C-alpha cells in the first residue's frame, strides 16, 4: 500500500481541543499528533526534529502534561486537550515563559525552542523541580544543538522565581 491509495483507507473520527478550539476530525489511524498539527492544522510552531522521541522538539501539552507529539497517533487522543506553542501565547501577548526565553536569550537557531518552552511550562506545572540541578535533570528530554542550556535554565529559574514570589504575595494577602 502506498501513499496514492491511502485516501481509500478507512478513517477514524476523533475530537480534539487544540489551543482551546474543538475540532471534529476524520483521520487515518497512522497519523501522528505531530503530523496532524503541522499539516492539516497548520500549526507549524511544533517542530519535527528526530521524529523518534529523542530530541523533544515536538513537545506539546496533552491534557496539561508534556509529551512527545511524534510518538502519539492522534486517533488515540479522542477527547484530549492539546496546547501547542501557539496556544501558550502570541507575540503581542506572550506567556511568561516565552518572555523569559526572550529576555535570557535562551536560544540561538530557535528550532528546539517551542519544545523547550512547552516542556518548561509542563515542568513548572508538575512542581517537582526546586533546584537548578533538578531543572536540568527534568529538562533532559529537550536537546539544544546550539547549546543554549545555561540560558534556558536561567529562563526557567526566573519564571519559577516569579511564581514563587507571586505565591508568597498571595499567601500574605
Amino acid at each position, binding site marked *: 500500500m502506498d501513499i496514492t491509495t491511502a485516501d481509500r483507507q478507512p478513517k477514524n473520527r476523533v475530537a480534539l481541543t487544540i489551543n482551546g478550539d474543538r475540532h471534529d476530525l476524520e483521520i487515518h489511524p497512522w497519523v501522528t499528533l505531530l503530523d496532524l498539527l503541522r499539516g492539516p492544522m497548520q500549526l507549524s510552531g511544533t517542530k519535527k526534529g528526530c*521524529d523518534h522521541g529523542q530530541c523533544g522538539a515536538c513537545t506539546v501539552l496533552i491534557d496539561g502534561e508534556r*509529551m512527545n507529539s511524534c510518538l502519539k*497517533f492522534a486517533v488515540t487522543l479522542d477527547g484530549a486537550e492539546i496546547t501547542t506553542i501557539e496556544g501558550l501565547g502570541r507575540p503581542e501577548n506572550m506567556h511568561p515563559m516565552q518572555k523569559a526565553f526572550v529576555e535570557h536569550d535562551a536560544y540561538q537557531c530557535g528550532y528546539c525552542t517551542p519544545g523547550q518552552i512547552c516542556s518548561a511550562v509542563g515542568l513548572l506545572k508538575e512542581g517537582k523541580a526546586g533546584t537548578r540541578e533538578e531543572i536540568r535533570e527534568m529538562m533532559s528530554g529537550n536537546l539544544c544543538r546550539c547549546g543554549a542550556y545555561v540560558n534556558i535554565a536561567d529562563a526557567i529559574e526566573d519564571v519559577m522565581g516569579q511564581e514563587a514570589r507571586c505565591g508568597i504575595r498571595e499567601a500574605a494577602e
Partner: protein
Amino acid sequence: MRHPGGRRVRHFSYTRAETLGHAVAALAANPQARVLAGGTNLIDLMKYDVEHPGAIVDINRLPLRDIEELPNGGLRIGALVSNSAVAYDPRVAERYPLLASAILAGASPQLRNAATTGGNLLQRTRCYYFYDPATPCNKREPGSGCGAIGGVNRIHAILGASEHCIAVHPSDMCVALAALSATVEVEGPDGRRDIPFTDFHRLPGDHPERDNTMHQGEIVTAIRLEGNHFAHHHSYLKLRDRLSYAFALISVAAALDVKDGQIVDMRVALGGVAHKPWRDTLAEAEFAGQPATRETFATVADRLLAGAQGQGDNDFKVPMAHKAIVRALSQAAAGTPQIQAEKHVR
C-alpha cells in the same frame, strides 16, 4: 515510498477497545495485532519498520489507570498508569522509594508522562542491530543471525546470553520490580493469571524473538507489589554514557533488611547486563546472617558475576558491574540512596 516529513509507518487497521474482553478477543483473533498503550516504544519501532503490525488494538480507554491499596500493605498498579504517575504517587514514593527512584532514572519526563506501566515491561531491546532492518537479527527475524556477536557490542549482555542473541532488556523500572519481587497480572483468552516478576521476562536461548513468557492474546493488566517495602535500605544506581536521558550500561537495584548490622534479606537486581532484569535469589540467600559490610558486598558481587562474560566492546561492563553492586549495596546499607538529579555517585 518515503514521506517528505520523515519515515512513514505502514498502514494498519485500528480498533479502539472499550472493554478488556473486547481487547483480548481482538488480540486473540489476529496474531498480527499489537496492543497500543502509551505508544512511546511501539510507534518508534513502527517508524523504523522493525514492527509492522497489520492491526492495532488501542487499550487506552480501558479502566486500568488506578493504583489500589492491597490488604497486605501492598499496592496494585494498573497497567495504564503512566510511569510518572507511579513514580510521584505518594504511596509509592513513601513505601517503594526504590521503584520511584528507578522510574525517575529512566527516559525523559515527556516519555515518562506518556509511557505506561504495562508498556514499560513490554518495551523491546535497544540493540542497534534489532533496530536496523538492514542487518541480521534473530530477535527481529528469527534465523537471520546476530549482528552484535562479533560486531559492535558495547551495550550488550554479560550474563545469560546465547549464541543467538546478546541483547539486553532496556528498562530501569523493571530492575526495581525484579528486586521487589513484584507480580504481573495478565489476562487472556484462558482467563486471568499471575506471573512472578522474575519469570515474566526470559533469557534468549534458542528463541530470542520471545522477550517474555506471556501467551498469545494475553494483556498485562496490573503489577502487584507486596508488603515488604525496603523503604529504609535501598538504592537504584544507574551508570550510563550521559548524565541523564540514556539507557543504562549497568544499573543496580539494591534492597536490604538489616538487623544489628547483619543481613536479614538482601535483593540485588541488575539492569543492562542481560536479556531480562538479572536476579539470582539462590546467591542472595547465601548471604543471610552475614555482616552488612563492604567486604561482604564485594563477595556478593563476585558471586553474582561469577559467570559474567564480555563480548569484546563491552568487557568493561564486568568490572563496572562489580563496582556498581558494591556501591549500590553500600548506599542501601547506609540509608543514603542515590538521588537521580545528583550527578555524582554518592
